[in-house]
């Protein structure tokens, strides 16, 4: 088994090596994210140190006020030191406050910059990943990565460099002071470090496992949530609410338990560390007391070391919190780095073949194709389409028509053989060139929430309003769009729920019209249209397709009228291939289909 990429993401039984590998991957990512901000981080930390210093000045000034300024007034009526002390106090207060402000804003900037770049990177990467990945990974998990995982990284970044820096500094200084003051007490502290490290190690190992569990359980919960909300109509129509409540409830509970476990072990770790501190202070008092009585130690020194020891352990709570946050963020980074480690199975070429203006000749050379999950869908396909030809692709459902189209649009790469455009292997074309040349209108007419105009403009982002309207007019969508409350600026709601399914198809058709590619693939692009609209679309097609290559997949043979050539597919093979009239005359499969279709017409 491998833990490369997202494989094994759901497992909780990693071996030591696997666990280390993931850890390293997550740490690398953290470093990469933080590196660009090293300078800012450094001076922000400096600010923390200075502001900590300003905080320390306060008590000293008060001591000065009482010890020096007061006698000065009493003795010689000299008010100057008191004025000085007061002003110094005000200045240190203002300085501490302003530093605090600058520090806080600056660290927020760092944390937001890190999150921003991580978000962007993750988004960009998931967009690049191939359909094959998305089909298996599901949208819910990507959303989980982008929301709840990022949230735990944010917690780490927000909560606390401040505490960590202050804490470590503080411990270092008091530690050194102690050793200088009384080496034996220093030794006690040193010895106390051993169980502290053991305890920390225990916490680290346990919490790594448990934090991973929180990430997987929260992702599972989010996946379920997203799926329910996406399919809410079916949920209602088939009354699965109660079953979903149970199922989702289980996932919520799993997440709760995971969360609770991880909080609980921190609830042992933190008091454990504090108890350790208490024990070592007691030991210092004991050893010191004995030595004082023996006369080998000054009382003053004992008092100082006891108080120092107490101080030494004070910041440890903050540091433990930081460590906890770090563990949580690491678990999240493990998952995110896994996604980032995935490579597109349909990669962009390193040195693309240039394709200036595509003519649109298409060749499927000895193509064999199988989806990752099953047998061959296209066992052996050899197909050559000259530029400018309009090809109708018909055949039983599940024959592999969409698959063929998806290969041409390079959603997948063939398992064997090659698909070529103008003689160039699609694998050698840059994404930009390919997408400019080949556009596919998919069987599912997906609209994004946003306005009608935005949705059409997806075909050509810099299109003017006039171009958008022209495209809509060409496919016969203008009338209904104008009738919408805000015309082209009407929000179509999520998934285009605001418009009817036929209207959705018209809009996605307009989108392709606007994109104006050399090769156009229409996959059942008129299946949900009524006959008059379909006729309009067909007229539009006739002008549109005059000078470009087109593959039109359709069950309604009305489309065939405008095709130069018909391919009949069955079980992944092309069984008939000729001009429509010739096929009808020949009396094969297509002739049967055509007759059946004619008969159904009225």
């Amino acid at each position, binding site marked *: 088994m491998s833990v490369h990429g997202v494989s094994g993401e759901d497992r909780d039984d990693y071996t030591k090596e696997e666990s280390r590998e993931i850890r390293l991957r997550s740490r690398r990512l953290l470093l990469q994210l933080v590196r660009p901000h090293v300078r800012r981080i450094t001076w922000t930390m400096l600010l923390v140190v200075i502001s900590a210093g300003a905080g320390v000045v306060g008590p000293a000034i008060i001591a000065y006020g009482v010890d020096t300024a007061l006698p000065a007034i009493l003795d010689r009526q000299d008010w100057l030191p008191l004025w000085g002390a007061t002003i110094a106090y005000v200045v240190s207060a203002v300085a501490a406050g302003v530093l605090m402000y600058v520090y806080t804003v600056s660290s927020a900037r760092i944390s937001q910059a890190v999150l921003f770049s991580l978000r962007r990177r993750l988004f960009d990467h998931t967009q690049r990943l191939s359909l094959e990945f998305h089909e298996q990974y599901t949208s819910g998990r990507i959303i989980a990565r982008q929301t709840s995982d990022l949230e735990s990284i944010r917690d780490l970044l927000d909560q606390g460099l401040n505490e960590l820096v202050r804490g470590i500094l503080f411990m270092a200084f008091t530690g050194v002071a102690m050793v200088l003051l009384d080496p034996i007490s220093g030794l006690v502290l040193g010895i106390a470090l051993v169980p502290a490290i053991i305890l920390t190690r225990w916490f680290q190992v346990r919490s790594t496992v448990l934090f991973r569990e929180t990430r997987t359980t929260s992702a599972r919960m989010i996946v379920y949530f997203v799926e329910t909300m996406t*399919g809410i109509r079916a949920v209602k129509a088939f009354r699965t609410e109660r079953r979903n409540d149970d199922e*989702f409830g289980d996932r919520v509970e799993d997440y709760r338990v995971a969360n609770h476990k991880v909080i609980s072990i921190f609830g042992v770790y933190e008091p454990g560390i504090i108890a350790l501190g208490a024990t070592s202070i007691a030991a210092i*008092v004991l050893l010191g007391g004995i030595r004082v009585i023996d006369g080998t130690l000054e009382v003053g020194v004992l008092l100082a070391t006891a108080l120092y020891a107490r101080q030494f352990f004070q910041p440890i709570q903050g540091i433990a919190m930081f460590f906890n946050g770090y563990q949580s963020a690491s678990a999240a980074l493990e998952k995110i780095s896994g996604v980032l480690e995935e490579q597109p199975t349909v990669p962009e070429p390193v040195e693309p073949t240039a394709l200036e203006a595509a003519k649109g000749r298409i060749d499927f050379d000895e193509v064999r194709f199988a989806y990752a999950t099953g047998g061959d869908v296209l066992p052996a396909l050899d197909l050559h389409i000259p530029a400018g030809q309009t090809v109708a692709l018909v055949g*039983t459902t599940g024959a592999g028509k969409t698959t063929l189209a998806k290969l041409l649009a390079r959603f997948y790469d063939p398992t064997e053989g090659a698909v070529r455009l103008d003689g160039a292997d699609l694998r050698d074309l840059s994404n930009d060139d390919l997408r400019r040349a080949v556009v596919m209108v998919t069987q599912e007419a997906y609209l994004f929430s946003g306005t009608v105009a935005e949705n059409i403009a997806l075909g050509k982002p810099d299109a003017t309003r006039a171009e958008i309207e022209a495209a809509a007019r060409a496919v016969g969508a203008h009338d209904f769009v104008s009738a919408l409350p805000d015309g082209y600026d009407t929000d179509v709601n*999520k998934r285009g729920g605001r418009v009817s399914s036929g209207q959705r198809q018209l809009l*996605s058709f307009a989108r392709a019209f606007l994109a104006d590619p050399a090769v156009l693939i229409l996959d059942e692009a008129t299946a949900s249209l009524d006959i008059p609209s379909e006729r309009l679309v067909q007229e539009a097609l006739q002008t549109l397709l005059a000078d470009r290559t087109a593959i039109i997949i359709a069950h309604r043979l009305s489309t065939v009228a405008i095709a130069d050539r018909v391919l009949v597919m069955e079980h992944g093979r092309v069984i008939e291939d000729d001009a429509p009239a010739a096929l009808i005359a020949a009396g094969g499969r297509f002739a049967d289909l055509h007759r059946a279709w004619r008969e159904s017409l009225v």
Partner: protein
Amino acid sequence: MSSQPAAPSKPRIIPSLARLMPYVRPYLPRLLAGVGAALVGSLLALAIPLVLRALVDGPLTHGDRDAVWPAAIAVLALGLAEALCIFLRRFFVLQPSTYVEASMRRDLYARLQQLPVAFHDRWQSGQLLSRAVQDLGQLRRFLAFGSVLFVVNLMTLLVGVGVLLWWSPLLGGLFVLLSLPIVVVAFRFEQTYHQVSRRAQDQAGDLATTVEQSVHGIRVLKAFGRGRHALDGFTSQASELRSTEIAKARQDASLWMWLTIIPFVSYAVCLFVGVWLVTVDQLTVGQLLAFFATAVVLNWPIESMGFLYAFAIDAANASVRFHEVVDTENTIDDPERPATIAEPRGRLTFEGVRFRYQDAPADERDLVDGADLVLEPGETMALVGSTGSGKTTLTALPARLYDVTGGRVLLDGVDVRDLTREELRTHVAMAFEDATLFSRSVRDNVLLGVPGADDEVLDEALRIAQASFVHDLPDGIETVIGEEGLSLSGGQRQRLALARAVAAKPAVLVLDDPLSALDVDTEAQVEAALRQVLAETTALIVAHRPSTVQLADRVALMREGRIDDVGTHSELLARNEHYRFVLSSLEEAERNREVNL
């Protein structure tokens, strides 16, 4: 982009948090115990240095050998007691906080499932998700850490101020007076922070929406090579969120700044006045020192108030966002005294049905504008109309995915609104125009409406829908089909959705263009098999093609929101011009010839 209601402009922290009470109440004793443990813990933290000093100054200095052990043990006991208090605080508070979070999450989800489709039309999915995940997480953390700390630190603060006043009423009073500007600062903070905090939460929700769409719409984005375009959109949204978060941090920072400056300046003034008071013999040096020793202890509680305040506002906003959903009135609810249909026969009647979507412009006519239609038991009715004429809308009414806005829909003489939704939806099953499948096994998908039914039902449904291809899938009927069934071909998906509706064995079948993705042969086979079912089941079938209309006994033509005409296919073809326009792809002359044949 975001279509959820705008944020209320008035911050109301306490009422918003108080609304969590029903969830928190069961755990109140534990929370109070947690506060108790925290209080004792912070008292111990204060006491330990004093005790240390007393021990060292006292018994140890006097060379009392017997005192060494008890002194060390006392120190140990106090320290362990402090650790125990921390342990107890977490023990008491943390578990309840996870329970509160989980039960709120379950309630939110349950509520979302109950709310009508119209609600889901309006709300972005990311907004719902961010409420269910991020907001509730925020509330948990506030409950676990914020609220306890708030209470403890507030008490410490009050006690501390009391002590200050006790040491020296004059200085203490001066300190309180000089610190009053904090109230103004805090008030202003609340006004502005409240809004940015809310904006950040909303923007996080919008970002989640964009992520979701970018994945669900990945095929379109890839087909047009618009990955970069989508990235640009996402980037600008993410950078808006970033600016908001930084604006939030600014607000935070400025509050903290004032919370540092104001008390410290007050101390400075107190120092001056205190020394002066000593010189005029109104105060002893001891009292002055004691005053400042106490004041130092207050630094942390004062400072912490800053982030706790922000924390509380975030939590209050999260609570408001949660309640925005939970409080939404469920407009499609079960009746108080539900009727029931003992023996459903499947007579479906539309009586003067009117319907308009919530966002329809006021001057527009109702989308369904007084439709009358009767489906006799066992009858199959095709519903024909041009694109966007309201067919899908009409078919959503019998199962109450939407409620009529006028007139009524009757099932066996009972208004559908008088039945429980559970009962109604057992009588009415649907296949939608887009096959909404779930990433579960084929079996679970087909048996969605009849969980626990046996294989016979499953096989029968698969047979009728001509979906035998499922047996060729890698794990047969146990194969988990990908998200939304997208690892199946279009026609395969549609047939599974059809099988699902058929398997439910309802009295009324509502099929929205159920054969659009099938080839001519398969369509004919499905139709032949469906005829058996349709012989005894009432069915309303939306049709775009003459071939689908063939399934029906009669056809209803929808036009301008009404049922324009009802009759058999050939009757309508002969007498209705609009019907010919919608359904006929033949030229007039050709048709005449065919009809005459």
